[in-house]
């Protein structure tokens, strides 16, 4: 099944942040069971202002400011989800998921299975990822690999305003716990988003740019980076295909493998720490599935394996850039 993509959409342009806001507003209008719980989500609309206006429309009963208690915010929403509500948990920085792991992993992810299919936990956790904001080691991590590792959870990572809206609506309608990672630096990014209702299915990767010489598979913040790299590569006569996995769990292995078979070269780019990260899973899936078609080893580009440093001159080295991705691609293509 092919998901709709930006190509076949109307011209209205809004920001990534507005797309998130719209998705939440539409789903809250559609379904009275949907509510938001998090820190400074009401009047403040979060520090990123992504939720601005929602409390005005839906009131403090559905857009609820919480104490600074990530574990309980999550746990309370697990309980609410088990008993007929559809909570959207707001965890300000992805670094703080460390405090929610027990409720997400030992509770939310397992309740359906442990109950033999009798209970369900339709919960969405919205949180953030991404570095280079000079926010240092505890406010810059991209920890989506952890949740991607856990059966029972789904993980979505939009890379455009269009995808953000469509994937978030799908997440809210999903009957399972879904973790939704938003790149902090992308909130101001503008892109086409149709006025009308649409959703984007999970587990369907999106070819953001087609090419024939090399496949670049990217997630979230790294999709735009990879598209810029593809531009650079075009000038060097290399045609790069850029694929956005959109969801790491479920993962659309087939689309990734088919593209790698076609181009016979692949790079995986993700902003999480490289070691034991998302790039490892995707690279090994391709190395296995496209084994007999590959002309070169699948290369991985994750965040450097260091805590994120504060100093700009150091931080900027830790994340893949259009140049570094293009460099790697050229090497792989022997140019």
């Amino acid at each position: 099944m092919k998901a709709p993509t930006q190509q076949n959409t109307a011209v209205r342009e809004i920001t990534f942040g507005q797309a998130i806001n719209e998705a939440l507003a539409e789903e809250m209008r559609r379904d009275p069971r949907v509510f938001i719980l998090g820190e400074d989500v009401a009047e403040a609309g979060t520090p990123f202002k992504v939720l601005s206006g929602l409390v005005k429309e839906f009131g403090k009963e559905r857009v609820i400011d919480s104490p600074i208690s990530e574990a309980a915010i999550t746990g309370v929403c697990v309980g609410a989800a088990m008993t007929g509500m559809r909570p959207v948990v707001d965890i300000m920085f992805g670094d703080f998921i460390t405090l929610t792991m027990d409720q997400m992993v030992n509770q939310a992810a397992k309740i359906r299975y442990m109950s033999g299919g009798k209970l369900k936990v339709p919960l969405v956790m919205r949180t953030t990822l991404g570095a280079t904001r000079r926010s240092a080691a505890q406010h810059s991590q991209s920890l989506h690999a952890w949740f991607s590792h856990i059966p029972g959870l789904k993980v979505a990572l939009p890379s455009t305003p269009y995808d953000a809206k469509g994937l978030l609506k799908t997440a809210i309608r999903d009957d399972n716990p879904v973790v939704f990672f938003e790149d902090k630096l992308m909130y101001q990014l503008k892109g086409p988003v149709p006025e009308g209702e649409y959703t984007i299915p999970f587990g369907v990767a999106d070819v953001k740019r087609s090419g024939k010489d090399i496949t670049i598979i990217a997630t979230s913040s790294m999709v735009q980076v990879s598209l810029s790299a593809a531009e650079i590569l075009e000038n060097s006569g290399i045609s790069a295909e850029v694929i956005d996995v959109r969801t790491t769990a479920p993962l659309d292995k087939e689309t990734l493998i088919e593209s790698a078979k076609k181009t016979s070269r692949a790079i995986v780019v993700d902003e999480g720490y490289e070691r034991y990260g998302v790039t490892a899973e995707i690279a090994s899936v391709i190395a296995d599935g496209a084994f007999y078609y590959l002309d070169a080893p699948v290369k991985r580009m994750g965040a450097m394996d260091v805590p994120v440093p504060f100093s700009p001159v150091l931080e900027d080295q830790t994340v893949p850039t259009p140049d570094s991705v293009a460099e790697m691609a050229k090497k792989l293509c022997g140019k």
Partner: protein
Amino acid sequence: MAKKNIKGPPNIGRDEWLRFYRQMLKIRLFEEQVNDLYRSAKMPGLAHLYIGQEAVAVGVCEALRADDYITSTHRGHGHCLAKGAAVNKMFAELLGKVDGYCRGKGGSMHIADQERGNLGANAIVGGSTGIATGAAMSARLRGSDQVAVCFFGEGALGQGLLYECMNMAALWKLPVIYLCENNCYNEYTHYSETTAGEIEARAKAFGIPTESIDGQDVELVHKTARRLVERARQGDGPSFFLCHTYRFHGHHVGDIDRAYYRAKKEEEEWKSRRDPVALLAAKLKKLKVADEKAVSQIEKEIRGEIEAGVEFALNAPYPNADEVDQHVYA
């Protein structure tokens, strides 16, 4: 404040007294059966027996409606039965059979029975405080007058999540009762070595009214529970209910040599003087609610139910192999 504009509950009627006894005895005999199953290697995994604490689960659950919620713990058989679960499907779950409440996937530490509002046992100490608090929040948001009871052992007082949840419950006046069963031990350590200050004060600090009573007296547990459930239902918010009790057996069935952490004499004291089932039996006679004959008649019936339940479970099939990857996602 706990009693603010709450009329005292009506007295306990004959049928109620008898139901309390049936339910408490059912838990007692169920757990003795579990003990046998485990010792005879018919039951896999771990088993944490509720024997000695029966008055708490029964006294509280008898004050709840079928659609009220409870969350339970690793020592959860008693809560599950008290909320109305069937013996046979529980045994089946404990043996990992497909006819169990969770198709054998959950086992002793994860039985859930949502038709009767049991959101599940939990093998993470304190792990269900968020769930119970969330169920109460959900009731509020849905405009329902359901109440949630969060059962936990005093060991869960060590988990920070409890305090985060009590803060929210108090702020938002949620209909949740934090039911702390102080059976004196966190596994193999006396609670006084792990618990500073005064237990009730930990809830009072959040403005939550508390009750602290003898958990071996089912009448006292029940009347107090009625009052707290009533105030929660009326929208007066959460409460903290501390019941002093004791587990008669080991932390789990395998915990036989306990001398290094608690004196045999202490165990004997409780078993001989403070056995909630024996105390209730005596009371029934004293109140002339039931004579010796009636009491043993009840026991006979329940033994029959237990035996039939074990039979059912032993003969029930295991899940098909292909169920292993079913129910991961809804």
